[in-house]
């Protein structure tokens, strides 16, 4: 099938407009579709979109700060990266729109972390606490931490 407009090139774009009482169908080649303004612009990738959206800066950005890692919203916009798992909570109202535009969605519907025993992580953290207590020569605290470690079946005498 040839293009309805130029009648030369093969039609590769099919356009259908449905209005009450009237249906228009067009078969166009790419060049003619472009002329009629029917072609979509090249879609920006999420990453390109992010770079573009991060350019929108405001004087207030310096004052919005993550209370855990102290990353400011301004710095987030410069680097395009979060500083910790709490940044989202502190930046939420300011970045909701940005995330929605990048992903065309604002709600995670996928998998969730499985609630496991997390034993080794707790043990790891307790050992860190123990190390710090010993550094400070806080032996009473250290003894308590050792007891808690024993609850996990770890006899940590170091």
């Amino acid at each position, binding site marked *: 099938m040839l293009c309805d407009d130029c009648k030369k090139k093969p039609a590769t774009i099919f356009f259908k407009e449905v209005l009450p009482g009237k249906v228009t169908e067009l078969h166009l080649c790419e060049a003619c579709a472009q002329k009629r303004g029917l072609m979509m612009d090249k879609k920006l990738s999420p990453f390109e979109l*992010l770079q573009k959206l991060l350019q929108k800066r405001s004087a207030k950005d310096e004052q919005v700060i993550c209370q855990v890692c102290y990353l400011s919203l301004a710095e987030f916009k410069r*680097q395009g990266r*979060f500083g*910790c798992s709490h940044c989202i909570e502190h930046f939420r109202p300011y970045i909701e729109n940005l995330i929605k535009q990048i992903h065309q*969605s*604002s709600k*995670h519907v996928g998998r969730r972390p499985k609630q496991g025993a997390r*034993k*080794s992580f707790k043990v790891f953290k307790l050992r860190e606490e123990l190390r710090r207590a010993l550094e400070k020569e806080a032996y009473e605290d250290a003894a308590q931490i050792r007891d808690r470690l024993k609850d996990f079946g770890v006899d940590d005498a170091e």
Partner: protein
Amino acid sequence: MLNNIRWLVPAKQGGDSSEDREIVVSSRVRLARNLSDFPFEIKLKVKDSERLLQLSRSVIERDCPGQYIDMKELTSLERESLLECHLISPAFLKMNKPTGLYLNEHGNISIMINEEDHLRIQGLTGGLNLTDISAQVFECEEEIGRDLEYAFDEAYGFLTSCPTNLGTGLRASVLLHLPGLVFTNEVEKVLRGALQIGMAVRGLYGEGSEIKGSLFQISNQHTLGLKEEELIQTIIKLTHMIVDVEMKARDAIFTKAKHEFEDKIFRSLAVLRSARVMSTDETLNLLSALRFGIGTGTIKDVSLDVVNEIMLVARPANIQLYFSQILEEHERDIRRAEYIRKKLGGNEK
């Protein structure tokens, strides 16, 4: 001598539809995960990154047995080779922090520790095999998640350094060999269709890399708002569609110019079996013709596994590891030709 590249595992058969193994070269799935109790990469101090490495390592070693590779103990050639084998990302090599890599026993799952995200869990396999490889990646991710708490938000899912990975943190991709569509000039049209439904299209080595050997990588761009299974199914469906149009393009080519194409395929094989000097790019292009020949049944005495292996081992760093020698470019081209002749039962006289 393949043992010289100790992480090289030839792609296995089987999967979602193994008959397409010539067109769908490989399938890959990666998950980005961060631990809630550590700052993310831009705020992570070297000392903390060491602790994170140590902690993750102890957990992964138990949950997902395999070999641990301390990146700083590798030579630059070995690091480059990991990249050529698609086991690590280019960004991983640029990290100025302690980094580690985990490879499971089968060599199809790799975990980068201290990349842009704390953990990047990746599965890589031959053919169209996304369902199977993603199941393995999720199993591994879940095992690790029982011991380490992932950063997670009710609205935004798994939290990642970069907002573009929020939600599932999942990137699924397939590497496609599309000589038919390249030849009939339809490839751009087909790939633009992929872009319109939210997929990214790239060359063999990811973002910004050139299209060589008629190889294209297709992956999802969005990670939020869709279930992991939906993202994967979309890519599988799209892949089937592209395989279909590729087959049609091939039929058209063969109806029009069967002898010319068979000639091109056999000439390519003859060059691969006889050449004395061979660059990486030339290898990729000739292998593309050979692959095409195997797919169309024109070539019967070379297996796809051999082609896949050559595709990997012929890369600049891998070929040096294969011969256990540091080789200058010209020397490399000579040894590459030698290796290929050997693999294809070529002409030594």
